[in-house]
């Protein structure tokens, strides 16, 4: 622990010394390691494929054409309750027609045995409305922000659902955002994940995408833009906040 305090103090000193050029200085703790966070998209426990029809437990037939979301503000917590907030952690996870990005390698993680991971889906209020203060992977030019209401689309799910009345597959789109829908996910691990300069930590989560449609009436709510807590957008946000579970953990010697 002393080491971590020394590291923080020395960083503060450096920031003080170099003044406004601090953000160009890369401070690397020689003891630090990496932590890989992966989120596997599944539907009814099988790997999600785009444009393939699935049926939810409630009997809704759907397929996705794209799924994109911001993973932000990752915090790793160790057995002693000490936590490491990953700086500028804003990542765009996506499964689209052009590819899959569902993993990030976090570097500079202080050595420790980590037992919990916290992250959010979406962008916190401090970074959600000024589209010129972009940190991490936040980018206002990747079709994951709104211009009419300056802010980021937290999660975008598009595809088709079976409309029983019209007896056809109709389009659905859910573009969820607005500050109320910023959701934080807490994952506690049964064991711990070792990270140090010789061990890279690894956590694989499952995102059960069928849960997005829990308690949703798609024949009515097939086009959602924005969102408040007490609306179908709010229901879907609760759904994605609870769809993550641990698939596997590990620590790999470099």
């Amino acid at each position, binding site marked *: 622990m002393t080491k971590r305090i020394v590291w923080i103090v020395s960083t503060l000193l450096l920031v003080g010394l170099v003044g406004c050029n601090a953000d160009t200085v890369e401070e690397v703790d020689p003891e630090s390691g990496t932590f890989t966070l992966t989120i596997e998209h599944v539907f009814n426990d099988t790997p999600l494929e785009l444009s393939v029809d699935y049926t939810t437990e409630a009997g809704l037939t759907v397929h996705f054409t794209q799924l994109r979301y911001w993973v932000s503000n990752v915090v790793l917590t160790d057995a002693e309750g000490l936590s490491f907030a990953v700086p500028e952690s804003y990542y765009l996870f996506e499964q689209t027609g052009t590819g899959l990005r569902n993993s990030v390698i976090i570097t500079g993680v202080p050595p420790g045995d980590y037992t919990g991971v916290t992250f959010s889906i979406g962008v916190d209020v401090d970074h959600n409305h*000024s589209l010129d203060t972009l940190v991490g992977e936040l980018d206002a030019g990747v079709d994951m922000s709104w*211009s009419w209401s*300056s802010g980021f689309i937290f999660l975008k799910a598009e595809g088709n659902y079976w409309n029983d009345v019209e007896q056809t597959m109709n389009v659905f789109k859910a573009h969820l955002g607005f500050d109320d829908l910023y959701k934080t996910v807490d994952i506690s691990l049964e064991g711990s994940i070792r990270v140090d300069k010789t061990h890279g930590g690894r956590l694989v989560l499952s995102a059960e995408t069928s849960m997005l449609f829990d308690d949703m009436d798609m024949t009515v709510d097939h086009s959602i833009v924005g969102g408040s807590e007490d609306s179908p957008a709010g229901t879907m946000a609760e759904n994605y906040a609870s769809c993550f579970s641990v698939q596997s953990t590990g620590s790999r010697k470099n």
Partner: protein
Amino acid sequence: MTLTPTGWLRIVGLLLLLPACTPSDSGALFPVPENLGSVLPSPERNPLTVDGVELGRALFYDPILSGNNQVSCSSCHKQELAFSDGEQFSTAGVSGNLLLRHTPALINLAWMDGYFWDGGSFDLESQVYGPLEHVDEMHQNLSELEQELADHPYYPQMFLKAFPEDGITIPNLVRALAQFQRTLISADSPYDLHIRQGSGLTSIELLGFDLFKKKKCANCHVPDHFTDYTYRNNGLDDTFPEDHERLAWGRARITLDPADIGKYKVPTLRNVAITAPYMHDARFMTLTQVLDHYRFHLAESDTVDAEFRRDDGSLGIDMTDEERDLIIVFLKALNDDGFMSNTAFSDPEGLQ
């Protein structure tokens, strides 16, 4: 050569700019008319600099910002019309499609804390992305724009001068545009001369000003900004359909608060005589129509502003035709001719 006090201030201001991480004193470089305030507001992260404003001005007039390189900010925001366009709904965008809301005039923007008619954008920097990317406005791809600017004969140097740390980036582009737009200050109308020097308004205009206050216009269009920078429902409609992503909800489209349904930004009345047509949907062609709306045609709804209620609860502001016409005479004294001709705001064509 002797320097005037302002000259010295400018030099001191420039010296203050030298250490890049110290917030600069924009006030010394961009003075504010005293009846508007003491400082020109700007976010700490984007203080005004001479080079930033100059870059913003060049970009404002340059169609390079649009996807087809034919539409600039000034295609809809024309200086001769106080940076409005005189149209009900613009078709000047890349697609030629009719826009859904009326082009607002750009006047004293630095004091606003929300942009667009419903305040959907929290700062001028973020506002830029709206017109820049919208398919019916400039329809620009941001990475292509970055490349075009990098290949341009003078923008790389201008960006480096304005933003020495990282030069051409989209955030710097929107910051430069915001800086320029914050300098679009209008406060040199006959009314302003009257306030600052004690004379400038005729006796008829003064009668009109008196009525402007008596008939409650000034309760929302508060002098000297002639707006209170809030959002209000001025009784235009009694139904608020949800199509076009709740377009007709106005402010509530952004806040999702039912109490905000039908509310729009209270616009400044500066230069109002040359920024027709009026309202977010430009439904009124003349100031007479606007004032007659407040007299006779206010629509009842849950959110209509209480200022419009008579003591008996009915809606309307009572005035005679003569009183209405006198108010309009006063409104014309809010025209700032210098704003429309100030070369510091004009197209810097030929700039190298």
